[in-house]
């Protein structure tokens, strides 16, 4: 009873706080602060048509490195959290087959989904999308695979290698930024190229590709762990 009352009180108070925020909110009419700088100088400085990508990969690249780390961290934690003991590892659980429709469409769609994912992160500096989105799309393909065939063993080692190598490459590119350009994660150590081209915006496509691979691998890894954890007794 007291608990419900307190919850009510909390929610009412939050409503009050948010109401105040809402009332004091004046919709923006023009860009201010750093946003204005990005809008005016972003294309020139970074060379990416997609300004969000410019912000994500370069200006706030350090954040992005943190994001990648979070995914990596989660995958690692789940890795040892849901780790199976040796007995369970060898156990084989045969699931019932799933519907024919799913199996067939998976066979058809998964390569396309993978391709699409790659497209999304390679073109991250030009069009909506990027490494995270691309990676997520790839992982959704893996998810589809697992759903279509619950007994499928994902190649664990491949995921690991992709994840590891792309992560290291991300860091190395970041360090190259220090060595060859203005600072950590500076994309300008590769020439910016022609604005709007696929191979433009310096290291951004490179970075985004590695991010895409890494994110895809990590999410797949997590999915893999969840799948395997069913064996736990």
């Amino acid at each position, binding site marked *: 009873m007291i608990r419900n009352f307190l919850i009510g009180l909390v929610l009412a108070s939050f409503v009050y706080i948010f109401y105040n925020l809402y009332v004091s909110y004046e919709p923006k009419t023009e860009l201010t602060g750093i946003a204005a700088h990005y809008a005016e100088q972003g294309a020139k400085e970074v060379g990416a048509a997609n300004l969000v990508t410019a912000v994500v990969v370069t200006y706030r690249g350090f954040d992005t490195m943190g994001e990648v*780390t979070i995914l990596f961290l989660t995958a690692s934690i789940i890795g040892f959290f849901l780790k199976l003991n040796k007995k369970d590892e060898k156990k084989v659980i045969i699931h019932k087959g799933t519907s024919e429709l799913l199996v067939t469409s998976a066979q058809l769609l998964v390569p396309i989904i993978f391709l699409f994912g790659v497209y999304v992160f390679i073109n991250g500096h030009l069009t909506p999308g990027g490494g995270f989105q691309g990676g997520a799309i790839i992982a959704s393909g893996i998810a589809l695979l697992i759903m279509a065939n619950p007994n499928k063993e994902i190649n664990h080692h491949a995921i690991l290698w992709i994840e590891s190598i792309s992560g290291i490459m991300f860091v190395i590119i970041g360090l190259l930024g220090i060595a060859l350009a203005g600072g950590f994660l500076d994309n300008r150590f590769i020439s910016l190229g022609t604005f709007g081209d696929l191979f433009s915006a310096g290291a951004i496509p490179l970075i985004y590709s590695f991010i895409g691979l890494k994110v895809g691998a990590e999410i797949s890894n997590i999915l893999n762990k969840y799948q395997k954890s069913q064996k736990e007794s």
Partner: protein
Amino acid sequence: MVSPIYIVAAALGVGFAIGVLGKLGKNFSGILTLLTLGFMTYVSSEWLYAFYFGDQVSTYVFTAGYKPPISINLLMGPQEAFMSTLINVIGLLGGIYLFFNFGRKGRNAFVVYLVFIMSLNVVIMTRDLFNLFVFLEISSIATAGLILIEKGNRAVGAGFKYIIATSIISSILLIGTIFAYFYTGSLNIDDLVKSDLTTTTGGLIAVFLILIAAILEMKPFPANGWGLDVYEGSHQGFSAVVSAATATASYFMLYKLLDIAGNSWDHYIAVIGAVTFIGANLLGVKQKFARRLLAYSSIGQLGLLMLILGLRTYLGDNLNYVVFGILLTNLLAKTGFFWLVGIVKAKTLKEWAIIRRKPFFLFLMGTFVFALIGFPPFPSFFAKWTFVMDLAANGGFVWIAVILTGSFLEAIYYFRWFGYAVKADDNYNFSFNVRWHKITPIILLTALLYIIGYLTAQHTELGRMINFIPLFFVLILFALDFLPVFIKNTIAIIGMGIYFYFIYPSLSDLKLLFEVIFMIGGILTLIAGYAYKGKRSGFYPVAILMYAGLTGLIEANTTLQFFFGWELMTAGSYFLIIRGKRSMPHALSYMLFSVAGAYAILAGISIANIGQLTTSLSIFNNIQYFPQWAYGLLLFGFLTKTASVGIHIWLPGAHGEAESDVSPMVSAILLKAGVYGVILALIGMSKSQYDLSSLTYILGWVGALTVLFGNISAVFQEDAKRLLAYSSIGQLGYIVFAFAIMTQLGWLTGFTYVINHFMYKAVLFLTIGAVVLRVGTHNMYEMGGLIKRMPLAFVAVLIGITSLSGVPPLSGFTGKWLFYNAVIEKGWYFQGVIVFLSGGVAFLYLFRLIQTIFLGQLKDNHRNVKEISIWFLIPIYTLLAGLMVFSARPQWVLQPLGDMIANYMPQNSIRWDGAYAYTAIGHWTGSGVMMTIGSVFLIVFLILKLSTRKAHKIKQFDIVYSGERPDRPDTTHVAYNMYAGFYKAVWPLTVPLAERFWNWMTELVHEAAGFTRRIYSGNGQAYMLHIVLYIIVLFFITIGSSI
């Protein structure tokens, strides 16, 4: 200089690489991780070194090649370097400690740990709000993962609570961040600080949300159940890292973000910190489990840090010194403590008795306990000192009270715990094993604690003046602890002798008198130590520690030196007292009263310090502000050591249960430290321009009542050493009363008692202690007739009690005579009457002491006991010789003393004419009386001798007994409840009101803690409710009204 960005790059690079390289083996991953942590430590410590020993200036690190706020930047300044070095060092040592725990979980655990430490580094260094959020999340997720290296469901539950709680907090932070960005157009913290964010309602709420999130990260009481569970539930190796490294990062995050709101939040932060500090420590008092206790303590430390941060305006430039001192100590000691818990694996505090199976571990634990409570020579001692001094200088008296109260609560549970470790029954069948990788980090931390403590002292002008030589001597004795007692005793005596020889020329008057009591008394009581066999492990370092403190008191020229000596003395005496067989509870209450007293002294000094240009001890003579409070607090502090009535309850047990040669040390010698303090305060009061007579009047009554109480209680003791202990209370009452009179005569009386009590109480305690060693019991009714077996001991006690009772011609009468004159001259008749009446009561217990032990019927089981050890007899008879000289020639001592006192008390109220003393109302000659009585005694003795030649001794049972022989000595010996009749008359005076009061207070604290801690129901959802309620309450308190 290696750029700090390499800390991130190295950690991530290695972390990602281990994914593949980990195939080479777990140990390979582990070593790679440790190397990386080592590299990170190297980078940050290189910066730290450059800041402190070079002229390095703060450096910004830009990412992506753009200047902030366009891109994210990191700042490496002195504070950042310090904090990140701390984190990395703890991280590295923690990595070593947890090496195999991680290993069992596979290489991923190493990766998570590495990333965890890295993220804390970034939290410290980053100057971008959103980046802060991201890396805070990384650290939270990593924490939630690392909790799981501990097996079992408890860790899983704790981790879950942790992650949902931190998710809520980070949601709040995120909402605040995005609105802050919306209103300012920047995410850079420096920009936000410069902006006028708080002028708009929305901005105000955004700032509130950001700050409340930062505050909640500091686990404020009571919205911190999740934090407690993390400390308790996760592996202790990791709890240590959370307690140290995460706390450091959280503190620094709050420190950075606080600037956004300017100074307007300082007050709230201080209050939140205060509530947390006191609340957590209060609940700790009730705690029985070691892990949970440390959890409460860790929360308490966070509260203290918040408190300090909130009070930064009081501290000014000293903020960093204080924070570093407290943070360093807590970090190192708490980490070590957690790791110790991880090794010892005893669940309840009582089970910690097993730790003393390995004495070195006890030493480590002791180091941590004393460091956490803020004893010298650890950094927190100096930090706390500076903190309190600065607070007082700016009028923050309430805050001083808060800090000292919280610290006191903390002392309660730490010393109780430590007491269990030293003395609780160890009858457990489990034991603990030690592996090198677990103990090495702890040893390193301990060494760091001592080294940094020393460096902290050297950091300030005042600290550099402290004499560390006695402390080094103590450390040497620690190192030599494996030697047999004979050698160590000789080393200790020679060491003290040499020290006294060198210090002697520099002292005079008051200082000389007390130094003689401390040092010569110390050497004499140490001689008795030769009677012990074996190693007497741990005795010499702590005994010398006490004497180091005592001599430190004497040598002190500044208030800091004085307090330093005072605390060392307290620590040393605590260890001495707790050595007794049943001393555990008494040592605890001794320590608690001592700590409370020390805090009162600290507060008193801080008030005295206000407006002073000097830090010398002479500020006591010239207290400018609130002199009543300053002197009152100082006196209260000193009176805890002299065991005045009401705050005496620690003494009987502490002195009574101590070892035979420790009792005289702590009674005859140690109590004089309190007297020395009282004298210093009173000298100050005599020179003060204010009228402080009401204070001395109260002091006089306290002294008088102490005499009455001590003496009456002593009468009804069955335990010989407790009897002497109560007698000490009474005697100290005389001394306090005499000094409170504040006249030349009064002080002369006081000094006479100081000297007398030193000699006869040392004699009595040494003798009785030696007798106890022989007969194996403290209970007087189990002894009797020992005069036949140990006549030399009997003579010593006879002279001792005659002197104590004040019967002429021995020196006790000197004190009584002076007393009468002083009291009548002063006009304190009623107090005086109470004191004199108590003198009559003293006869009862003194007679009981000698009658029931030495006279009456010898017990069957004592028929073959030997005379007390020669090693006790040597100091006893040396002191007796001194006593006799003082009795026969009191003028030798009293005349120079009178001249000395004339410096402070100019009334020339006693006149000496050779051996004759004259006051306005009386006259007396010590030598003459001695001569007269001696001659009469001799003549009568000779006459009797002539008339009863050849008197031969008859057997024990040949007494007039209704024509029968008594069958057993036990039934014929009048000893048990000897003063039953007197008890019927005076029992109302023996009601232990003080004990009841303190018991009641203890109950109150425990009940309060027991009631309050029910909020920690263990339900994660309830904890989330606490968090949001906390936010709401704080919202309405802070900015709710201004919207």
